[in-house]
């Protein structure tokens, strides 16, 4: 029987790995404790709103708990949860009703809370303001990305995942992941240049 450590370190393969991955879900409290912060980070990057990210994080674990019997253990628990989170974020963006309210009230203001609450660590108020404006420009660029580009971008630059891991979590081929990532980087760099010209 494989230990949790072996599963986490990827030291076992095949059926053993699948069985061990599936067994990890037996202790669901531990799964929540272990992965909730990561899922929250992914969702915050995808929806740009802390309250929505919090709600969707809970929904993600609820959905995972209800469909845990369908989990085959082929992907790691973390990858499986991220996949659920990405689908929830896509549903959130697709939802017309939510989209209406989002367009009506939010716009670019979604990320402003994140930016405002972020301590920049700048020495002077001017530097602090500059750092926050720069961060707001990045958030603004990220919000303009397509859902797939955004998911790939967040998984790479927030979760530091490899291209293969991102491919597994998004059901895309590594080549497609790379293309999305390059386009996302291009958009962000373009936005940063615009901000430098007219901050």
């Amino acid at each position: 029987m494989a230990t949790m450590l072996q599963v986490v370190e990827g030291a076992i393969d095949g059926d053993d790995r699948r069985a061990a991955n599936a067994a990890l879900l037996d202790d669901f409290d531990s799964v929540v404790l272990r992965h909730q912060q990561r899922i929250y980070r992914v969702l915050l990057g995808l929806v740009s709103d802390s309250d929505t990210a919090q709600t969707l994080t809970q929904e993600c674990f609820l959905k995972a708990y209800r469909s845990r019997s369908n989990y085959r253990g082929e992907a790691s628990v973390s990858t499986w949860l991220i996949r659920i989170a990405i689908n929830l974020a896509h549903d959130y963006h697709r939802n017309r009703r939510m989209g209406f309210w989002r367009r009506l009230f939010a716009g670019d203001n979604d990320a402003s809370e994140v930016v405002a609450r972020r301590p920049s660590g700048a020495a002077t108020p001017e530097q602090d303001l500059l750092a926050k404006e720069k961060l707001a420009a990045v958030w603004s660029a990220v919000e303009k990305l397509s859902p797939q580009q955004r998911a790939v971008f967040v998984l790479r630059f927030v979760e530091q995942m490899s291209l293969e891991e991102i491919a597994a979590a998004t059901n895309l081929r590594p080549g497609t992941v790379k293309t999305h990532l390059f386009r996302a980087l291009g958009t962000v760099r373009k936005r940063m240049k615009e901000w430098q010209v007219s901050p």
Partner: protein
Amino acid sequence: MKEHLSEEQLNHWILGQAESDATEHMEACAICRREAQKLKAALDGFHDSIHGMAEDYRLRWQPPVQPGRSAWSQLIAQRWAYAVALAAILVVSVVLLRFDHRRVPHPVTATLSESEILMQIQADVSEDVPSALAPGELLVAGAEEPPPAPVNVARRGRKSSRR
């Protein structure tokens, strides 16, 4: 010096997949290095802002009592627990009562035939008779002897009425 790095080469460098000539160029060219570092700093800021918010979330987070279970379903589950406990108590008490009842010694009754039972009843009846049933006993006893002379109650009554 060669031309500056292309956008694709810069992306590769950001992703840590730059080829050796691009890395060499980056070390030599201050303009490309500054360009890449600006973008990297922006990405790091994005990374840190999300991680900072996640840390706040971790501190705020209260663990749910149990995932996937509402307060109502928990109440129902508690009710079931109470019902099961009550049923268990009932079963145990019934078993104990039956066990206690079995411990009371019963008179040993031998299986008797019908005629033997009748004989026993007759013997019991003939043993002791309460005083109130004494005339009955006399009657039973008298069945074997000649009956005493009957008293003429009607004649006596006539005499007394004439007085």
